[in-house]
């Protein structure tokens, strides 16, 4: 199982999902209409490292974080 966390303003409780890569995760999350705009504007980290490849594999125990647009300072 992979834990998915929604950071900052997304305001959604974490999910535990059975997915093998970010592609599959994308399919699952797209089913949730409340996430549509967040999926478009959020970056993704796997185990706290930002990733840019949709084929990035996920293994049991991994943590995926969605990071919406930022504004520090």
């Amino acid at each position: 199982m992979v834990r998915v966390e929604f950071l900052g303003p997304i305001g959604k409780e974490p999910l535990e999902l059975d997915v093998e890569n970010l592609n599959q995760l994308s399919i699952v999350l797209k089913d949730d209409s409340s996430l549509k705009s967040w999926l478009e504007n959020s970056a993704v980290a796997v185990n706290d490292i930002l990733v840019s490849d949709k084929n990035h594999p996920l293994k049991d125990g991994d943590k995926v974080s969605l990071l919406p647009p930022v504004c520090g300072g």
Partner: protein
Amino acid sequence: MEIKYHFYHLFVVADMLELYDGSLEVEKITNSWYDRFRLSNYGAIITFVGVVRDEDGIDGLSFDIYEPILNSWFNDWQKKANEQNAIVLMAHSRGDVFNHTSSYIAAVCSPKRRVALELIDSFVEDFKASAPIWKYDIINGKRVYALKRSTKIKSAGILS
């Protein structure tokens, strides 16, 4: 003496990124940085203080921080700075910060001014673009996400 100095330096490096609940005590923090580093022969110390502006009817700003990624982002900048014999320092608020108080301080210490002047620019600009910190306006006691002033992190949208 040399070994003692290196130990001191290693010990101090851990505390270069400071997070506080609420407004920053600007004088306390910047004075502590000056006291810590003035003996290290940094000829140039540049401090950037960000102050919350009273505008658009807000009472202040509020912040969420994702620390694991903030720490790695900061450590990468420390390595970049160290390559030029400089160091970076930063303080940021968590939670509510009211108008006319500070939420963010960044500093660069360098032997020479040119490196410091250039580093503070790129350090602050990259902070704005990349640091995993989310800003909310405080309006009538409520937090309203400041989407319009926020920047998508590089590689945003890969799940869409």
